[in-house]
Every structure is written in C-alpha cells, then in structure tokens.
C-alpha cells in the first residue's frame, strides 16, 4: 500500500483555479490524490451528497486474418474521465476527454449545475476530502502490456490458425480469425474516501468458418477469452479449435431446419450458460429492481427456481473473462451467491442500486468505459454442478433437442427471453439422431427457472460480451450440462 498525499490546508474557492498539480499524465498513481481530493471537496461544498471520479486510460488493439491475409490491425488509444454527482436518489454523470485538473473541474461544475447545486461564495473555504490509503490493484500488473504479443506475433498466430482451419474443414468458403487485446487502467476516487486503481488486461481470440455446398450453408464460430495472462495468444491451441470448428460446420452443413414446438432440451455446458445469464441473471441486477422490470424484486428468501439449481456470480474466477479485482466504483469484487437450491439469496448491486433499492453493494458496479456511469452488472456467472451424470440427462428424454452450441440472446422488460441455437441435434430415446438448425429458444424467466430439473457435474465456463445499460462489458457464462423439462422452440 502507498499512503495518499495528506490533504493540504483548506483552500478558498477563489484559489482553486490557480492551483497547479503535478499528477502523472502517463499513469494513475497516488499523485492524483491532491487534485481529486480538492475537487471532491469542491463538490461536497456545493451540497452534493456523493461525488465520484472515474479516470480511464485504454490501449486497445485488434487484429483480423481472413483466409491467408492479415486484413486489419487496429490500435485504439483512449483517455477520459467521468464524474458522478448524487443528490438524494438522483444523479448526474458528466464525461470528458480532458483529464487535466481544469478539465475535471469543468466536468464537475457542469454536473453540479445540472443537479441545481451552487458553489459557495468565492471567499468560502473548501474542505478537501480525505482519501483512503491508495489501494493499488495494478501494482503487480505493471508489465502486462509490455509482455503482450507484438503485432508481428498476432499476425503469425492468426495466419497459423487460418491455415489449420483450411486443413481441417471441407466445403470451406471463408475463414476468419480475430484477436483483441484490451488493456485498461482505471482510477476511482469518491467522496466517501475511496481511492483505488486497477490495471486490467482482457484478451480474446475467435475463429469462424463458413462452409457452403450448393444451397447448403453452415457457419460456426468459437471464441476463447482470458484476463491477466499476457501470453494468452501464443498459448492458444488453434489446431484443436480448427478441428472442432470443422467437425461442427461439417455436421451442420446439411442439417434440417428444426420443427417448431415445445420440447424437453439438454443445454450443453460452457456457453450454454447464456440461458441463465439472460433468463435470470439480468433479472437479479438491482437496475432491474429500480425499473420494476424483474419478477424477482420481492422474492429474496423465496424459492424462484427448481431445487436442483444453485448459481453464483463471482468477481474473480481465476483468469475467466469477467474477472475483476475491483469494480468500476472501487469496491473489491465479491463472490455472490445468487440462488441456493432454488432459493433467491442475493441481488447484484452497484452504488446507485444500493441507494435506490437498499440491497448491499456486491462489487458489481461495471461500465464499458468512462462515457458510462456504472451499473449493477454480472461478472462470472454460472450454475453450479449437480448430482447427475450426462448419461442420466439423455436417458430421461424420449424426444427432445440437444443444444450443443448457443448463439446470443436477450431478455425483455417483461421477462421474456430468447436465444439462438447455433448447433443442435434431435434426441430420440436418449440418443442423438440428427443435426438441426434454425432453432430459437423462447420463454418466460419465471417459468424456465422452475423447469431446470437436472444438472450434471461437468461445469465449464465460457467468455461472453454483455450489452446493457452501462454498455458492453466482458462476462463469463457457465453451467454443467442441464435439462430443461420443456421449452418453446421457434423454427420452421
């Protein structure tokens, strides 16, 4: 830990514009304590109940290979800040690219003005906010960016992967691999004394194939993700990915369209966890309680799911895609038990959610970048293992569908969810019989949670991108193989 710079003697308001601060411009460190404590004090002196500064630097690069060529390398550099001002349960969020003292001050004053708060007389003393000791989660991560793959290595790996796909797949029409590295440094300082910094490194690599034979087409993708391992890309076993993609694309190329109806289904583990993410996870965010758009808002302590179901949302799951050491409000990420044996235990809450709903914060305040205020969001969310074997699940189905690879999905304000199935198979008398395409699963969150009746023991996590009120954030979804007793399947 590093001690924050002790507060200066209180300044008069009229003296603040003349202050010069020597904060580092190429990193966020303890030198930011002085200007931020002054600005926080300024906000408090205007009558704000709570003020938070969020500073961000970002160094992002993406690389794409199509067939046998690198077709895009795109670096992106971002610096920005946001200031949030609370008065009662209302709040205002102002963002800017200007992270100088005067830029931040201008953003703060705009926020105060919008909230109808007036600065005191220029002769008034502005008491600074005393910040906690600098909590630096980034201290051990300083070398991460430098140790990541170079542009040359990115290109070599992606071209190698595309070559592997070409070897493995038949009827190949197009192949594409894409990688991104997202390095982010954030600093949070708020009027409750929070003063913390983190460095995050998120990487993902994905491959996609399009196969075609006459009018028959299939497209299948696979994506891997990681936080905190600079060597992630070079460690990628793209040969295995290529073989798996080729096998799936080959099977789906001549698949029949699924016949619409109501079926029992088996959801595969890994990205199958998107069902829980969409059908339940979003409805356990306090932003949904604030809007009155979750059927679970008054169900804490009550049974909302089948007794076979236990679910978690973890801030830290090794190097999984949604892992954070602290959230975007400076709170250490928690491990949150959402549902235990069907009983609703906790909601995911950010600061605003806590203020407006009373549910305690869980280190779940997240945002895409400085242009968004934080909101309660999922991190690494999964259904826990159950007691059944995979064979038990299949044996219980006379006629149903095995959803092996899920596409994306969403949940609406009335609790209706939907998601696409990229790779599906008909199950007859406990056996997989033929591939199916074009399936969409639809239902009501309240209903479906009661119908997840069997969970196997093969929990697996998968990376995902979640878009919601505070932008797109990296998340993990996960589950073991599980059975849903009946669900509506849209098809032809």
């Amino acid at each position: 830990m590093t001690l924050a710079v002790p507060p200066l003697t209180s300044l008069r308001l009229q003296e603040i514009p003349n202050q010069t601060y020597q904060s580092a411009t190429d990193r966020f460190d303890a030198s930011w304590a002085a200007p931020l404590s002054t600005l926080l004090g300024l906000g408090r002196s205007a009558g704000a109940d709570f003020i938070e500064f969020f500073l961000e630097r970002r160094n992002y690069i993406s690389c794409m290979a199509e067939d046998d060529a690198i077709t895009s390398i795109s670096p992106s550099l971002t610096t920005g800040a946001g200031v949030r001002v609370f008065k009662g349960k209302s709040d205002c969020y102002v963002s800017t690219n200007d992270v100088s003292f005067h830029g931040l001050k201008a953003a703060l004053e705009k926020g105060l003005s919008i909230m109808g708060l007036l600065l005191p007389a220029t002769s008034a003393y502005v008491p600074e906010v005393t910040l906690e000791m600098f909590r630096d989660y980034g201290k051990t991560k300083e070398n991460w960016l430098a140790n990541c793959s170079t542009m040359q290595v990115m290109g070599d790996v992606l071209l190698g992967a595309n070559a592997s796909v070409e070897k493995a797949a038949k009827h190949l029409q197009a192949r594409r691999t894409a990688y991104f590295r997202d390095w982010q440094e954030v600093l949070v300082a708020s009027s409750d004394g929070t003063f913390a910094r983190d460095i995050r490194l998120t990487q993902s690599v994905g491959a996609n194939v399009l196969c075609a034979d006459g009018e028959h087409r299939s497209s299948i993708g696979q994506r891997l993700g990681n936080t905190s391992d600079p060597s992630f890309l070079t460690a990628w076993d793209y040969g295995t990915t290529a073989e798996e993609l080729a096998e799936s694309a080959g099977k789906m190329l001549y698949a029949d369209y699924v016949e619409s109806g109501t079926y029992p289904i088996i959801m595969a583990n890994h990205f199958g966890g998107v069902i829980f993410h969409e059908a339940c996870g979003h409805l356990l965010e306090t932003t949904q309680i604030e809007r009155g758009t979750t059927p679970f808002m008054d169900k804490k302590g009550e049974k909302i799911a089948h007794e076979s179901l236990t679910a978690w949302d973890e801030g830290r799951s090794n190097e999984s895609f949604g892992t954070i050491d602290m959230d975007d409000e400076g709170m250490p990420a928690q491990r949150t038990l959402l549902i235990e044996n069907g009983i609703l235990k906790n909601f995911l809450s950010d600061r605003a959610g806590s203020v407006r709903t009373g549910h305690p914060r869980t280190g779940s305040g997240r945002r895409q970048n400085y242009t968004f205020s934080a909101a309660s969001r999922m991190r690494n969310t999964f259904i826990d293992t159950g007691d059944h074997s995979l064979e038990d699940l299949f044996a219980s189905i006379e006629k149903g569908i095995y959803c092996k690879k899920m596409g994306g999905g969403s949940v609406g304000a009335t609790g209706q969810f939907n998601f696409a199935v990229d790779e599906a198979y008909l199950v007859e008398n406990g056996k997989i019989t033929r591939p199916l395409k074009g399936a969409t699963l639809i239902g009501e969150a309240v209903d479906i949670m009661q119908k997840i009746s069997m969970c196997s023991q093969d929990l697996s996590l998968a990376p995902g991108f979640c878009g919601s009120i505070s932008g797109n954030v990296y998340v993990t979804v996960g589950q073991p193989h599980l059975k849903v007793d009946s669900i509506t399947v849209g098809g032809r």
Partner: protein
Amino acid sequence: MSKVTEISSNAQTIAQRLGIAKYDIYGATTDSTSVQVDKGEPKQVKASNRASVTVRVWNDQGRLGVTSTTDVDERGLELALKTAAEASAFGATEHIPDFSPEATAPLPEVDVTLAEAAPVGTLIERLVTAEQALLQAHDAIASVPYNGLAQSATEHFYVNSDGAQRSEERTSASVYLYTKTEQEGRKPRSGHAVRIGVGPDNLDIDGCLKEATDKTLSHLDYEKIESGKYRVVFSPEAFLSLIRAFGNLYNAQSILDKRSLSTADSLNSAIASPLLSVYDDALHAGNVGPETFDGEGTPTRRLPIIENGVLTNFLHSAGTAKRMGAKPTGHASIGAKVSVGSNFLHITQGQPPETSYSLDAEDNVILIDELQALHAGVNALQGSFSLPFDGWLVQKGQRTSIESATVAGDFRQLLQSIIYVSPEEDITPSGVAPHVWVEELSITGE
C-alpha cells in the same frame, strides 16, 4: 479556429515532423445531454463532451496503418500518427485502401437546420410531463421503466494529405418512452415509441406519447397463437430492421469477403418480387441530420439497390469500388479494414401491384410491429431468421395482441414471396418504408 481546423492543422505539422507523407483523418466531436425520469422525478442526467479521430498512415512501401484515439490534442495526435506508422509495417499487402477519388468532389447541398440546445431543466420537465401522461392514460400502465430525452450537437470531418478538408455540423434530439403494464392475473405487457428531430423544440413528444399509449393498450388483451403458417405483414420499422440485418446481400465488402448471400454476378438478377424497390438515401428529406460525406470523404447520394425486384447496385467504399470496377457510393466507414454499410434506407413500391390488400379486409393475417433480438436470431450468412416479435393477429381489421411468438424463414425466399407493398410510407428514425406483405411464414406460439 474551429476544432476541426485545429486538428487538421496540428496533424499536418506533426506528420511533416514525423516524415509521414500520406495520411488521412476522419473524426467527430460531440456535445450531448440526456435525461431519464422515474415517477415524476429526475433519475439520471448524462452529459458529455467528447472527440475521437481515426488516422490512417501509408508508409514508404504503400502499406497502411491505422489508429483511433480520443486524445485530439497535439500530444495525442502525435502518438496516434506514430502508432499508425508503426502498424503500417504489418498492413495488408493486397487491396490496400487508398484515398477516395471523390474525396474532393463537390458535396451535395442539403437544407440543414441547427437547433439550440435546451436547458437540462426543460428536458426533465418535458419528459416528466410525458411520463405522467402515460401513467394516467390507463390504470394498467404501471411504469415507464425505460425513457429518455436526449440532445446532441456533432461535427464530423475528413481531411487528407492531398488537401481534402470537409466538415459539417448537425444537431439532433430524440425521445423514447417504454411502458410496462401490471394487471391482476395477466402477464406484464409493454409498448414503446421513439421520435427524433433536429432539436428538442421540434421533437414530436406528443406523437411519441400517443404511439406508446396506443401500442400499450392494444397489447393489454392478448391471446396465444397457434403455431403454423400465416400470411405476414411487416410494419415499416420491422421490415427495415430485417433488411438491414441481411445487409450483406448488397454490401460489396461482404461479397469480396465471401460473406454474402450474393456474389459479384448477382447484379442485375431478380432477387425479390418485382413489387419491391429499395434505395439508400442519406440525403432523404426524412433523414434528420443527413451526412453529405462518408468516412473516406466520398459524397453520399441516393443509390438504387433493388429496382422492381432486380439487384442493381452494391454499396461501395473507395476500395471495393476499385476492385469491382464501380464508383464509390458514399457508404464507407474508415478503419484498417474499411467497412461498408447503409445510411438511410428507403423502401418503396416497385412495379404497380395487380392486387391490393388491406388489413381491414383480410382474415388470419399476422401484423408484425417490431422484431426483437435480431443480433441473436438472424443468421445472415445462411439467410435464415427465427425472431421473437410484437404484433397482432388481424381478422378483418380486428387486432388481437399475440402473447408471445416467433417468426421464422429464409430471407431470400421472403423477398420472393412479397405479395404487396403498400403505397403509404412511414418515415422512421432509421429509414422510410411502407407495410410489406409476405405470402407465408412460420409462426411459433408458446
């Protein structure tokens, strides 16, 4: 000195200092404010003042590097130009993008009004009034969980080292209202509406309010629908969203990438019913804030895409046009790999219909108001879709809300199965379109 002139001047100085002879820059500055309310009180106000630019640098070997940045001061621009120069060493060696041959061509003249921003208090007051009116419209409307009133002023620009320099300012405002109902023993229902305008003072909030109210009330009495094949009518917004989702059909970059339902040979072939014509028209009078140039500086225009069912043009960037022997069409977004996309679609009648249809006269027709989850339910590479929707079963003009259902089909078959394109067109935030009738699609009810 305007921000654009300043950035352009700085870039030129820095590029000369770094020995960069060829570059271009596309960027934008935005000043925006938005408000949300909750039960008569302001919930959150957001304001931002941001800038972002994308710089492209060609090295001595002619290879291209790109970098985007939000730091548009001298230090930030210098870093961006340096990084782009570094990236150029790994740029593509074939089909390298170049300046648009039309980057200095005259821009179309458009009649643009710039609106004054309203004070935040005014925005809140107007939104609170709309929210209260919605809540009082019917006992069943319990909340307006999603709402917003926003205004923004944007300036976007394009400059290059050959002397191209163009910029334009636009203002816009938008309002959206999304209701949720609560009734004993009934499932929650919702309805929503959106309006956009050049500024907060000419925003049709009353129209938005009426549409959100009418839609919500029309969904209160709902019924399940039996799965099967139905004649389907797409609302203007629904059809626009679907044709945009399958935009690879007329996107030259997708065709060159072999990720399209079309090939280069598809031009001049009949891909839809002759009743249908589709244009892309950034300059349409209904387009609030029309942009007169794209990310490469190419002037935008009205471009026929499908005329009387025949595919007549693809959307092009400078690069795709060069490769396919065409002219750029003003649809490029700058990047290491230039992407192509539509601006403002205008869907209209093609050949005159032999038979007219009316919802007041037909039986057992599904009217789709809005398609949902297009990001998940559309497989654009296969041409298939399976999508949840909001809509009604219409029996001779009598509408019954459908509780929950999906519509599925093949988009190319759908285009061929169009039996009627109504003459009345609606202007929507994303384009202009009429109601489009399709002979038959699969509907799955719960």
